[in-house]
């Protein structure tokens, strides 16, 4: 007895330590769970350049909030935008508007290119220079000369007589529909005028604190803008909006699932025991489990994700089984039996159920998803602490007279006596044939879909605004792009140019609307030299178009030579560094990755790409050295697919492992323990197939848990003796029902991943529960294990 008291006290010490650590974490360190969904995804394997390209693009996109303030006329749009900005400016610790476009920035913009204008040609101009006659260029120059508004014109006529530089600048301008106007940025939407307000978040986009401050601020600013005039509309888009919506929903779901599950469990236990004591005891075990899980998880990972809490908390809920099992048996056992003796009798079964569940949870840790690993560790730890609480404390806290024998649920308890059992008879054969038939039908219809986008269900209104914005601003996708690498910056630029030549036909046939590339602004040295040589050969030299133009407008003989001298200027090349230093590169700097891992790399981003066309884009760089198509969505989806398959094998192997674990104790009747779970798993898959659901990784994870929990029921059922059969059946009913309550509520989640997980659990566990008695042993007087001989 003394030894036992030591155990109780030792565990009390552990629990006190956990309490202190948790108090320190929450009150002292004020920890906050992560909400960034990306941290849950596998880290890009092997390729650091690719990884950097992606973080580069995503980081640039993530902290951005873009606002469009539209009205029927420009002055009203400007007033509304000012009203919006006034509100935002009050909190420049949260977000800040970009600097306004000034006269100075515009001048600086062009100066670099003006110095090297002969080096710059659009692809069309290059084609025309090669293909068109001298007459054509003389005509073009004449047209420009005489027309009062003959097209884009930058500076004096003599600096750009053929309009090549003007055309090049215009092509650059057309990379975006956004234009500076009155110190603001303007975009036209049909007949409406909109001010574009780019904002940069100064707090992490995925912090809940940030959401709580940023969202009301944006809402307030939106109201201010809309109140400033009639028919003002405001579109806001940014990662932070999705993040805020997702965490708000997750918070809501945590409360609903948590509270719902709790209320259900309390009700169930009260109905069974007519006492709150068991509830307090079970909550105590789950509470200690959660404390322990959080403490150790934090020590291991130094962070915790919100989804880990959502998911992990419901997994720890499984820990109630141990408590309920003990309590039901306590009520069912004879009064003479000491609680420690009872524990000794129950221990083998409790240990096996515990081990098999942990095996199931730890299989999750084998996946490469940091999020799943965290959940696995969190839930396993929770189970360990909850289980140990039951073992160390329950016998001490629950004596033979602590609980009254419940009178409720007698009909349920007795129902097990009338349950059909499997045997060598016609009825079993018929049921078996039906089962095989249905399974074959269902399984044959099973389909797979691993698309990552199925895992999220962004709010429709946010997606709508985002799409409108993307269409208006024609912004490139940050998750699908080409990665170009080379030994030197020149290599990279040359490869970009090769890639662009392949992309140009796709713009013509509207597969994409355009691309953003550094080489649009700063051609490779090779191209700069050849452009310059081309212009000099075709336009400036000898008796070419420039000279012909001179004679046409009656200029003197040396006019062409003077013009040529003025146009040619110093013969120098622009470098990537020149461009990166100039203000013109501000919007494009993120495309240049610079030197990574000994080589140089850049990104070529695509505008106007629809999802359906990404397979076309994938084929473009075929056979091109140093060019790679990066599709994060596709990649994650394929990882999900790989691990769905992988998890399928893990489930199968786990069945084998569990069989081996159980065999020493149950011998030839081990199949009886496993059969309900096997049947339930197959039938669940068949039902999902028959219902036309797509199978994905999360269904597999659910199967894994069904294995972990289902086997518990099998073990409990098998551990029973004649006089406690009813208590065991009651226990299985209570834990199955309460587990269904928590996971059933998960099926109500609006996050598709959780929903399909919940649905699978719902079907699978119900089937396990209902089929467990079918495989119980007929002869009830004899115990299956040594424990009974106590």
């Amino acid at each position, binding site marked *: 007895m003394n030894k036992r008291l030591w155990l109780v006290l030792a565990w009390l010490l552990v629990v006190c330590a956990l309490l202190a650590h948790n108090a320190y974490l929450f009150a002292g360190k004020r920890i906050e769970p992560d909400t960034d969904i990306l941290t849950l995804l596998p880290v890009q394997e092997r390729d650091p350049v690719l990884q950097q390209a992606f973080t580069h693009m995503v980081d640039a996109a993530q902290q*951005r909030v*873009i606002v469009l303030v539209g009205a029927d*006329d*420009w*002055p009203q749009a400007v007033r509304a935008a000012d009203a919006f900005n006034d509100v935002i400016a009050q909190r420049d610790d949260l977000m800040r508007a*970009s600097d306004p*476009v000034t*006269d100075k*920035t*515009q*001048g600086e*913009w*062009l100066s670099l290119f003006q110095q090297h204008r002969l080096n710059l040609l659009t692809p069309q101009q290059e084609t025309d220079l090669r293909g068109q006659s001298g007459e054509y260029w003389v*005509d*073009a120059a*004449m*047209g420009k*000369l*005489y*027309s*009062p*508004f*003959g*097209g*884009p*014109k*930058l*500076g*004096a*006529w*003599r600096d750009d007589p053929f309009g090549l530089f003007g055309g090049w*600048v*215009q092509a*650059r*301008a*057309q*990379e*975006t*529909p*956004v*234009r*500076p*106007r*009155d110190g603001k940025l*303007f*975009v*036209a939407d049909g007949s409406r005028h909109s001010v*574009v307000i*780019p904002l940069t978040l100064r707090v992490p986009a995925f912090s809940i604190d940030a959401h709580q401050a940023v969202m009301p601020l944006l809402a307030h600013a939106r109201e201010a803008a809309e109140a400033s005039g009639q028919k003002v509309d405001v579109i806001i888009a940014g990662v932070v909006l999705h993040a805020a919506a997702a965490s708000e929903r997750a918070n809501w779901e945590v409360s609903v699932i948590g509270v719902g599950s709790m209320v259900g469990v309390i009700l169930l236990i009260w109905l069974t025991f007519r006492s709150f004591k068991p509830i307090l005891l079970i909550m105590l075990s789950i509470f200690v489990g959660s404390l322990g899980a959080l403490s150790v998880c934090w020590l291991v990972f130094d962070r915790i994700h919100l989804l880990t809490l959502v998911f992990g908390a419901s997994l720890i809920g499984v820990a109630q089984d141990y408590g309920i099992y003990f309590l039901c048996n306590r009520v069912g056992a004879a009064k003479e039996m000491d609680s420690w003796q009872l524990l000794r009798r129950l221990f083998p079964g409790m240990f096996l159920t515990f081990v098999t569940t942990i095996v199931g949870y730890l299989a999750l840790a084998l996946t490469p998803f940091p999020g799943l690993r965290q959940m696995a560790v969190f839930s396993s730890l929770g189970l360990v602490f909850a289980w140990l609480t039951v073992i160390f404390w329950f016998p001490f806290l629950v004596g033979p007279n602590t609980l009254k024998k419940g009178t409720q649920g007698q009909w349920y308890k007795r129902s097990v006596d009338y349950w059909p059992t499997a045997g060598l008879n016609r009825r079993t054969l018929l049921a078996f044939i039906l089962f095989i038939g249905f399974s074959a039908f269902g399984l044959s219809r099973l389909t797979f879909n691993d698309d990552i986008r199925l895992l999220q269900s962004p709010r429709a209104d946010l997606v709508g605004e985002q799409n409108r914005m993307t269409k208006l601003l024609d*912004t490139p996708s940050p998750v699908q792009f080409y990665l170009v690498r080379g030994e030197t910056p020149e290599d990279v630029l040359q490869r970009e140019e090769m890639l662009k030549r392949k992309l140009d036909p796709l713009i013509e046939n509207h597969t994409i609307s355009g691309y*953003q590339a550094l080489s649009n602004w700063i051609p490779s040295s090779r191209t700069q030299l050849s452009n310059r040589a081309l212009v000099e050969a075709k336009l400036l030299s000898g008796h070419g178009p420039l000279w012909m133009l001179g004679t046409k*407008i*009656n*200029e*003197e003989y040396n*006019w062409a030579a*003077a*013009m040529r001298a*003025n146009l040619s200027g110093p013969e120098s090349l622009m470098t990537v560094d020149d461009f990166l230093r100039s203000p013109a590169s501000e*919007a494009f700097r993120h495309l240049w990755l610079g030197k990574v891992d000994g080589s140089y790399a850049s990104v070529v981003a695509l505008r106007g790409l629809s999802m359906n066309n990404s397979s076309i884009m994938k084929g473009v760089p075929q056979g091109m050295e140093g060019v790679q198509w990066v599709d994060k969505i596709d990649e994650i989806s394929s990882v999900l697919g790989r691990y769905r398959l992988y998890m399928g094998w893990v489930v199968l192997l786990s069945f084998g492992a569990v069989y081996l674990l159980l065999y020493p104790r149950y011998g030839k009747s081990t199949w009886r323990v496993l059969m309900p779970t096997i049947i339930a798993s197959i039938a669940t898959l068949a039902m999902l197939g028959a219902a036309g659901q797509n199978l994905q990784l999360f269904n597999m994870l659910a199967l894994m848990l069904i294995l972990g929990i289902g086997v518990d029921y099998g073990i409990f059922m098998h551990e029973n003796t004649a006089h406690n059969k009813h208590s065991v059946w009651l226990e299985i009913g209570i834990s199955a029902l309460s587990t269904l309550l928590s996971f059933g509520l998960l099926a109500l989640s609006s996050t598709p991943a959780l929903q399909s997980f919940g649905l699978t659990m719902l079907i699978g566990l119900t089937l396990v529960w209902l089929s467990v008695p079918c495989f119980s042993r007929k002869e009830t007087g004899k115990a299956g294990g040594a424990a009974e001989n106590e």
Partner: protein
Amino acid sequence: MKRSPLFCGILVLLALISLPLQASPAIEKIQSLLAKPNVLCGRFDQKKKLNGLKSPLSSSGRFCVVAEKGVLWRTLSPFPNTVRLTRNEITQTQGDRVAMRLDASQEPTVRMINNVLFSLLSGDLAQLESLFEVDARTQGNKWNVALKAREPALAKAIGSISLDGGIYVKNIVITESSGDRTSIVFSEIKTGKGAMKPEESSQL
């Protein structure tokens, strides 16, 4: 956010319109002097003095300004060249060849350019005032106006514009900061239904 603060040139030349400010008495007087026909056609004679060219370049042709439709600018001499500005497009044709086409869907400033040019040719000072500082003088039935862009970038790109006239705009002089100078004289102005020639109606 990508943006292109470039694009001054003639494109930005014209940032925009609307917002009639408080008009000065002189502007109101000019507005009352100007006839505002739906269709206005006539002859123009243009003289350009460009830096780097010793002799001025002369050209002439016909122009039409049609309310709600746009502007047609047909250079006939020394060679045919037509600029057509409509709500959604600017096209320039030289002979039979389309030398340039700018679409509003590609280039959002197209509408503004057209609006400003329309206002310039029809003398709509109220519209121009949102973009330019307007220095207006009247003398009897004659008036003259100096325009200076309010935006420094715009002022740098297009310099200053002066207009004068009576019931119609008679002269426009554009002095660019580069020293290039364009002056246009309008004559033989006709309004109403018969003003447009058939080939002009079909083009606009």
